[in-house]
């Protein structure tokens, strides 16, 4: 029996239950722990292939209902998504006051991002894209500060605008092709001449992509919500964004890939990715707030992912998807590390220092994650950045590879600066005693340890992930050079 829809339906249903349990702390903690375990099983309950449901299924070769497509590559992405969700839920068990609403929003986000990854029709993607935006806003509001409210409002304001533009793009493509099914839409486009409506639809879908994945011009508003949410929740938010970025990029390639007029869009997508990489790392270098520093690095790494997939070659797609997976792992480790530091009642980089003797294990694991994001071997970030540079060289774009290396150097500098200021900078005896009074979070350290092991594991054995992505990329990517 194929239980594929349960990947979306089950977390959504449990989210409703958690919503009603809000305030009942004693019940929420064990249930959240149970849910954290169940999430790990979800990616394995569906069979590979096309799953049609609703309406009349397949009629004269055209899908009239909702179609989900499941493949080993999608299973890998959803497994990582659920793993991060599970670890974030476990980290949250240490919070003084458990909020059922936060868990509900987190599950709603997990369900909607899974649906965006699985769906093969544009409207389903649009609906869950919007639900993911609402869940992300709710998670930012849940941190309860005035700054968080402002960030959430700004995010929603642009979200409503970008969502409407995305839907207008969907409407344009519907009017040009008469279908919303992505596979059918591609088949229509390769057999019919291009019209201005199709160009308009493509442009509007790219605007929607930029908003939800934090690419320019929406990078500041996205960085803002990462910085204003609680750090362990920001780990979840950036995971949503990266996987929505991968899903939407693949949708664009699936609809327009191989069409002669798509060559210009390749260039535009690569340009946006480069801007994201450079803006992100420059802004990160300027930050004195640790959360904001991490937030801008998330934007910068999003640029890497987009650049890889935008290359459109099999190697580029593998590198982009592999980097997205690596990124969510080490960036979640960094955000959870920030959560453990914030428990010591400090946030601003300039006010920190001397934490190495207080939390040595955390410091070591965070250092591993920092080296991973900087692309230092033998961590996972090195493997995917190497693949990305190789993919850029293969399409005769050495300048892109050089920019990637320069951004990596910038990342290394800002990460090492942050590590020095938090863990190594000398601090007063009084401050040290103050830090020692706060009890360490066992759940947070457990989550951090799991993510660090994954950073090393994927760094030493990248084939564990890339072998699952290559068959999809070989079928999907196209060879081209400038």
């Amino acid at each position, binding site marked *: 029996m194929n239980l594929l829809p349960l990947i979306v339906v089950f977390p959504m249903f449990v989210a409703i239950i958690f919503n009603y349990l809000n305030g009942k702390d004693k019940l929420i903690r064990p249930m959240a722990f149970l849910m954290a375990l169940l999430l790990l099983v979800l990616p394995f309950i569906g069979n590979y292939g096309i799953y049609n449901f609703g309406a009349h299924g397949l009629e004269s070769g055209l899908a009239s209902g909702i179609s989900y497509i499941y493949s080993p590559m999608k299973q890998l992405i959803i497994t990582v998504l659920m793993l991060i969700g599970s670890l974030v839920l476990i980290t949250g068990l240490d919070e003084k006051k458990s909020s059922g609403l936060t868990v509900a929003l987190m599950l709603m986000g997990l369900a909607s991002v899974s649906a965006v990854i699985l769906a093969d029709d544009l409207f389903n993607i649009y609906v869950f894209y*919007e639900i993911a935006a609402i869940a992300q806003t709710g998670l930012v509001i849940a941190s309860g500060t005035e700054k968080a409210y402002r960030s959430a*409002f700004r995010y929603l304001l642009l979200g*409503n*605008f970008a969502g409407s533009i995305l839907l207008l793009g969907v409407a344009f493509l519907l009017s040009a092709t008469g279908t919303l099914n992505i596979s059918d839409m591609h088949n229509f486009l390769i057999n019919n001449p291009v019209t201005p409506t199709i160009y308009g639809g493509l442009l509007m879908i790219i605007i929607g992509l930029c908003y939800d994945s934090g690419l320019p011009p929406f990078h500041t508003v996205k960085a803002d919500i990462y910085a204003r949410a609680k750090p362990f929740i920001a780990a979840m938010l950036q995971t949503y964004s990266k996987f929505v970025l991968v899903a939407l990029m693949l949708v664009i390639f699936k609809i327009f890939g191989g069409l002669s007029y798509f060559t210009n869009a390749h260039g535009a997508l690569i340009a946006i990715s480069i801007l994201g990489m450079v803006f992100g790392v420059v802004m990160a270098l300027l930050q004195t707030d640790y959360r904001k520093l991490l937030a801008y690095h998330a934007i910068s790494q999003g640029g890497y992912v987009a650049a890889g997939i935008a290359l459109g070659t099999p190697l580029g797609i593998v590198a982009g998807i592999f980097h997205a997976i690596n990124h969510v792992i080490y960036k979640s480790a960094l955000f959870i590390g920030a959560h453990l530091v914030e428990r010591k009642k400090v946030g601003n980089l300039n006010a920190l220092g001397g934490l190495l003797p207080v939390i040595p294990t955390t410091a070591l694991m965070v250092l591993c994650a920092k080296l991973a994001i900087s692309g230092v071997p033998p961590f996972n970030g090195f493997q995917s950045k190497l693949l990305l540079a190789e993919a850029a060289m293969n399409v005769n774009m050495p300048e892109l590879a050089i920019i990637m290396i320069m951004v990596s150097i910038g990342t290394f500098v800002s990460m090492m600066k942050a590590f020095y200021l938090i863990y190594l900078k000398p601090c007063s005896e009084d401050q040290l005693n103050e830090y020692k009074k706060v009890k360490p979070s066992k759940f947070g350290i457990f989550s951090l340890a799991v993510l660090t092991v994954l950073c090393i594991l994927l760094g030493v054995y990248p084939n564990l992930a890339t072998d699952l992505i290559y068959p999809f990329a070989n079928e999907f990517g196209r060879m081209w050079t400038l």
Partner: protein
Amino acid sequence: MDLQLASFITAGILIVIGLYGTFFVDNVIKKIIALSALGNGVNLTLIAIGYTGGIVPIKAQEMELALFSMSASYPLPQALVLTNIVIEASMLAIMLGLSIVFYKKYKTLKSSELLKDD
């Protein structure tokens, strides 16, 4: 004027008003109203796309299937609009809720003061 063309023109006007209000009006409530206009413009575009000048897509028992499929409007955009209205309502509700919080706290609704970078 052709009803479909008139709908497209109205939708275009709504979208332009919505875009202008979202980015250039300095009041959060007016911004929300503008976003609502933008959303309605997009919904009207979708409805106009599905409109073929025929009958509503509800098949009466006595109607022949061939005749129905030739004359009925395309129902898919209507289903999309229905879903979109629900999504948009929930987004606008959250924004209005936040506006109430802002007003209680700061006694103003000027977006230049409320939404400035920290």
